[in-house]
């Protein structure tokens, strides 16, 4: 079971958290202004990499907050977690 560093609460076991998909996929600020292809990309296109992946986790059974996390999808190693307002810091 992974240990995940919640930026607010500290290191906690994985089962306190909820995975919430790829990070840094910004919702268009004016959805009506984007074309169908761009909107479909926002909805469905994900990078699904083998390797480093920026993803969102929520500390569901803790502070409830969502944060970002950089995890290697091969080794499962987490190299960084950071608040949504922060930049990645290793």
């Amino acid at each position, binding site marked *: *079971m*992974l*240990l995940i560093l919640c930026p607010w609460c500290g290191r906690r076991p*994985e089962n306190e958290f*909820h995975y*919430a998909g790829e990070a840094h996929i910004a*919702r*268009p600020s*004016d*959805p*009506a202004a*984007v074309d*169908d292809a761009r*909107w*479909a990309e926002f*909805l469905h296109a994900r990078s699904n990499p083998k390797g480093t992946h920026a993803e*969102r986790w*929520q500390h*569901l059974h803790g502070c*409830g*907050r*969502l944060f970002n996390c950089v995890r290697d999808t091969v*080794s*499962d190693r987490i190299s960084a977690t950071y608040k*949504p307002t922060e930049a990645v810091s290793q």
Partner: protein
Amino acid sequence: MTGAFRTPVGGRIDRSKPLSFSFDGRRFVGCHGDTLASALLANGVHLVGRSFKYHRPRGILSAGAEEPNALVTLDRGEGRVTPNLRATQIELYDGLRARSQNCFPSLACDFGAVSNALAPLLSAGFYYKTFMWPRTFWRHVYEPAIRAAAGLGRVPTTPDADRYIHRYAHCDVLVVGAGAAGLAAAVAASTNGERVVLCDEQSEFGGSLHAESAPVDGVAASEWLEQALATLRQRAQVTMLPRTTAFGWFPDQLIGLAERVTDHLADPDHRLPRERLWHVRARRVVIATGAVERPLVFTGNDRPGIMLADAARIYCRRYGVKAGTRVVIATADDSAYAAGVALRAAGASVCAVADLRAEATDLARASGLPMLLGVGVANTTGTRRVSRVTLSNGESISCDLVLMCGGWIPSVHLYSQSRAKLRYDEAIGVFLPGAWTEQVRCAGACNGTLDVNACVQEGDAAGAGADAPARASVRTSIVVPPWTGGGKAFVDFQNDVTTKDLFIAASEGFRSIEHVKRYTTAGMATDQGKTANLNVMATVAALTHRNVPAVGHTTYRMPYTPVTFGALAGAARGGLFEPLRHTPMHDWAWAHGAVFENVGQWQRARWFARPGEDMERAVERECLTVRTEVGVFDASTLGKIEVTGPDAAEFLDRIYTGSFLRLAQGRCRYGLLLTEAGCVMDDGVVARLAPDRFHVTTTTGGAAHVLHHMEDYRQTEFPDLHVWLTSTTEQWAVIAVQGPSARQVIAPLADIDIAPAAMPHMSVRECHVCDVPARLFRVSFTGELGYEINVPSDYGPAVWEAVLAAGQAHGIAPYGTEAMHVLRAEKGYIVVGQETDGTVIPADVGLDWTIARAKRDFVGKRSLMLPDMQRPERKHLVGLLSSEVLEEGAQLVADHGNRSMGHVTSAYWSAALQQPIALALLSSGRARIGQNLTVPMQHGSTAVRVTDSVFYDRQGERLHG
């Protein structure tokens, strides 16, 4: 006497404490300190099981966890039958009852042994190739017969009577294995005050030290062991766990340990759990898991009486058991000589040592045993036990025990599970752990170090966190060439895989070791090929003209040895498997004949049985009560979210399809929630209590999901909004009062005016009901005049009973979820998850009226503009009338057609209409109203007429009372 083959002295068993036990009904006597295997051998029992495929007689191969053959079923009474236990690891207790497996009618006379004669049909991949014709025979003839004959042990049929618990622990250093290396590591680690957990799968700490004859650190092995144990016992920061297997490695140094607490006791304290599952999070891990002796592959190497050499030494020196009297040893390694010396000292005669090596080592020469250099075993004979060995030099020797040793296989399972890489050592022909890291160090035999003093040094350094000591370049074994002789030479005893099976796999083009494993089954089942895998890899390498590292090893997976389901489940059984949620009025419902159904984790009253009523009649009565008088319904399970803050209305505007900015205080609005893809996700009522406070309800099953969905948007997409979300689902008991007389029932109980003018449909009031602070909603999910009284949960039962008492004069009765469903279906109200399936958009189910089109944006809005959402052939919600109640999920087809045009989502007997009704999702459904279609069901097709989805009170007049 505790067995005819027991030595008069020596070993760690207590001859003064005899224990009686039975094996296949035969009674034997062993003694305290025995394993089942050592006690059987002491009684001269070698034949303990039949093999998996060919039902060949099998004996005890090893003295430890690697045992592939000696699998038995232990019977401790009802609910306490455990199959597939390794006799080599079962501690003997008085009254132990064990059974052999995989034989019928008896071990000595087994009908299944005929499959040995059918062996040509059962080679690698046989289930893909033979028994294929005639085709229909597979299902009814071959498969049942094979299934009956195959398998290891029988699955218990009664619930497990024992109790299991989980424990969580954190430590600085976890040491796995308490042999010489592990003990040294634990002592070194705890010297500087670190918290240490030391575990070992055996009953006693010490590992190979119990059978060690060489001095350790200048003193006798037993003395060194006592000192180490005494030191560890004095240190409070050391937790010592015998009978505890480290079975799995999980990310971030979480190690699973299975501790067997009572299995070794004849009469365990009932307060103790049978097993404890430890979740140990360790800063560092020292793996000192030892090594397993490698069997030799030769024709007939599987007969009872053929044993790993070191196992025989352990039986002799630790258990005082002479496994045979006339011994032949086949080896490629010095360690087998120690076994020969031990058995000779116990009075056995060692007839010959066939050493595959061309030259004698000093150690071998010093043993004084009769050596034959460059010689191997060619064949063996003997039916239920080996009786003769033919050597490769043509010599034939009569014997009752053959010992084999092909070197040592480091137990790198746990290390490999940690995802660390193994390296292949050409000199000794095994996979070894990689370099030491801060987190993981391997010490002792699992690191390829066999000399006991070198093990201690390595353990000491590993425990202290120091650098690895220089490895002593002691090489005592050669890499055994793969067997190329004929006959049945087994590489995997447990799965009956022979060199011939590997040859077939290779000649059919299987090259990947993972494919070979799955095709031949080598390395599968309960032992996971602990003794087999290396021989498999070496043989496949030779057959495919590659070297072993190019072939590679199969993935080491947890568990190292089988773990009981009980231990994994722990306390999470029965009522504790998943928490059941009860409403405040649950006990009342229980006492009043409610029949419950599970909705998510909730238990809800489905219907209330009156004497003489079945479900059909009760539901009909409950429906009619609501339509003609008044019914009361426990709606407490509805999800509730309190949305507060200056931007609460703006937030709801962005989340729901409707508009809430201008929703007046005291008013409610139906709220429809979409996914970003535009599909219906949930629905409920949004009530404005104050400019900055909303009471939002969700479906019963969707409560948590909706809150997460809202939280996600609040935190990440709309962080600029000042709004807070609080789950209040369990804070409110919800009593729905529905029916023409609802107002008369509630009016006397409430402290406000609830007349239509004062409290219209879709309004909310904060007031008191029965003097209890309440949020009173005027809403309806039945189509009748309705109210929902929200009171703090603790007051729920009292207010519920007060409502029932007040309703007596109006014919009030409680109704359950089944009637609720019928009533809402009569009105064409959808249930999210029943009429919707994650692909349904508002217009499909006639809810596009909820959409505030003037809003710039809300979650899901943009997706509704995609071309797919405009297709006229989308499935629409329609009603169906039929002559019988349809099956939910049944398909809709045109007359004589076979293409599905949609499906039935809800189907009931309508009490109000006195006929079956159904809701359905039908392609271009609104255009098909009035058409006749067919619904194929299990017993035949039935005709349906497509109608509007509202069956009752189409004008909605009844809502207004």
